[in-house]
């Protein structure tokens, strides 16, 4: 079967932002998202995830390329300055194009 091309948006950030990000994504109209608990280190120091204020999540969502760029710009405008956050896009191929 032919596959459709979509963008995968990946956001790695403080777990404190989880519910706000999910609300944002829903407002942008994504069809779903997946979250993983992770840990890491970056410009804002070590985040071992050993207690509440230290937790990091990795949130991914598959969507059309234009929406992916809108989401990334939104993140940059609202969260990049004040929070530990990394976001990037990559290319994926999916089966049911209408699902994303």
């Amino acid at each position: 079967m032919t596959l459709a091309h979509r963008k995968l948006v990946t956001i790695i950030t403080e777990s404190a932002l989880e519910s706000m990000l999910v609300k944002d994504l829903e407002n942008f109209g994504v069809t779903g998202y997946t979250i993983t608990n992770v840990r890491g280190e970056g410009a804002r120091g070590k985040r071992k995830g050993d207690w509440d204020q230290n937790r990091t999540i990795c949130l991914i969502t598959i969507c059309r390329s234009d929406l992916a760029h809108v989401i990334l710009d939104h993140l940059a405008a609202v969260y990049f300055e004040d929070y530990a956050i990394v976001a990037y896009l990559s290319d994926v191929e999916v089966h049911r194009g209408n699902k994303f």
Partner: protein
Amino acid sequence: MMLDNLLDPVVLCFVVGVAAGLLKSDLQFPEQLYEGLSIYLLFSIGLKGGIELSRAAPGEVFVPVLATVALGVIIPLVAYFLLRRLGRFDRPNAAAIAAHYGSVSAVTYAVVISYLVRIGQSYESYVTVLLVVLEIPAIALGILIARLGSATGGVKWGALLHEVFLGKSVYLLVSGLLVGYFSGFDRSEAVAPLFFGLFKGALALFLLEMGIIASRRIEGLRYTGFFLVMFAVAMPLISGALGTVAGLLSGLSLGGTTVLATLAASASYIAAPAAMRIAVPKANPTFYLTAALGITFPFNILVGIPIYHAMARFAHSIGG
């Protein structure tokens, strides 16, 4: 008395935890064990308070609650003033740190209770209510101060109140209180072995992990500057003194005054940071976490509590 406090297993556990962190041991509690223990401790604290409340005279608690609310307003204002004037912190950081010192640490509360029990000092049965009451006002005040004159739109108070009142720590304490209050002493007997029999052991284990976590915060000192270190030691002494006065004025016993002084002196590291991160994003977590968790928390556990007890004794000896 100081040494005696240090030899309590709960305090020794904290010490070996701090040592583990400083020595860079790979010991670390799995995060869900940490969370599980904190759920257990918060609910147990509430439950015990609720059961005791169910046997207390209802009117008694009124004046101390008022005094506690007053503390919840005065302490963050004092802290904010010190941080702005002497510490030269900007508004969001000063407000966020002040909120932490105005709020409370439930673990510090548990440690002071275990301290009083060990030395055989009685206290009012409703002190858990004061713990709950003191948790919130300072957080709201801190947000208010941070947002005053800030360009960033209005505060979403609905979301924030929800966040704070229905946040994990307050919800567990209040649930425990309600369950304990309504089921009462007799019905709770069958759950006592878990919630009361194991309490001190679980607290010891939890403090081992808190020692590890707190000691990791110490590297934050590099960024915080000397003033904040001073503040994190001086502020609990100031709030402890204010708490002692409030306890005395509102008619609390020597034990109750010690508890209120310790509550006042303790700094929040669960509810306050969670609220500040969302409501005051411009405040740097390194500042408030290093101060509250890296310095004030160990200070209170290791030497603060006997000091507040001494303050209360002194106050009662002259004022009582």
